[in-house]
């Protein structure tokens, strides 16, 4: 099983390094380009939320740990942080996607994109840490 870990400071300058990390993961798992982009976007969106809302706005600081595991039929990416507890899977699909821009609230898009870019998106709070798991099936499912 192919696996890799990375720890980065919980700030926005880490976004790029984490995108590169996810690219290595999808390359290792043989995920096609379009789905690889969507998974990269998913992780990037959640990491940005962690940094902005979980750390900065909460007056906290800390690292973010990321790892990937290439399993037989899927790629799993795990993200751990010590920001304020936040469960993005409880965030409803924005009801305003068909609204004109000027009528839309700003927010909720990142979590929506994270859910759209994964086959499974799981959250748990364990040992005082947020744990977000992103799963993409290795066999293209046509979605």
């Amino acid at each position, binding site marked *: 099983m192919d696996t890799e870990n990375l720890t980065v400071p919980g700030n926005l300058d880490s976004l790029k390094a984490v*995108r590169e990390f996810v690219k290595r993961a999808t390359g290792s798992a043989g995920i096609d380009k379009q789905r690889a982009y969507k998974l990269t*976007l998913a992780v990037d969106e959640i990491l*940005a939320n962690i940094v*902005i809302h979980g750390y900065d706005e909460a007056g906290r600081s800390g690292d973010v740990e990321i790892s990937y595991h290439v399993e037989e039929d899927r790629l799993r990416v795990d993200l751990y942080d010590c920001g304020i507890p936040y469960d993005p899977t409880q965030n409803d699909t924005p009801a305003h996607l068909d609204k004109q*821009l*000027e009528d*839309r609230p700003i927010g909720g898009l990142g979590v*929506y*994109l994270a859910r759209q870019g994964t086959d499974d998106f799981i959250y748990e709070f364990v040992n005082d840490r947020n744990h977000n798991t992103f799963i993409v099936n290795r066999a293209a499912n046509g979605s």
Partner: protein
Amino acid sequence: MAFNLTSDIHNGVVRITLSGELDASVAGQFKTAVEQAAVAQPKSLALLVSDLSYMSSAGLRALVFAKQKMGASIRIFVVGAQETVQETIEMTGFSHSVVMLESYDAAQIEA
């Protein structure tokens, strides 16, 4: 590729060229450019994005900001979007509010 942004005003259209990767760490630059563009009260805003290889929701939020700052009547054109960036714009419903063009069509944009 690092994020880069240039802008000019031409025939009443503010043209902002975006290249590289637009994420939350650089979205502030885009927002500032939109704010500066709003001062000129342009009739249209054209985003030239053929060299933009990545855009997160931070870029989309700047588009919402542009509409709010420049008024609902401002026309926003997104020109030359790569397939992945285009898909994000469509998936989030932003394609209802902007005009997606494959190439810069002066007759349409500067009308």
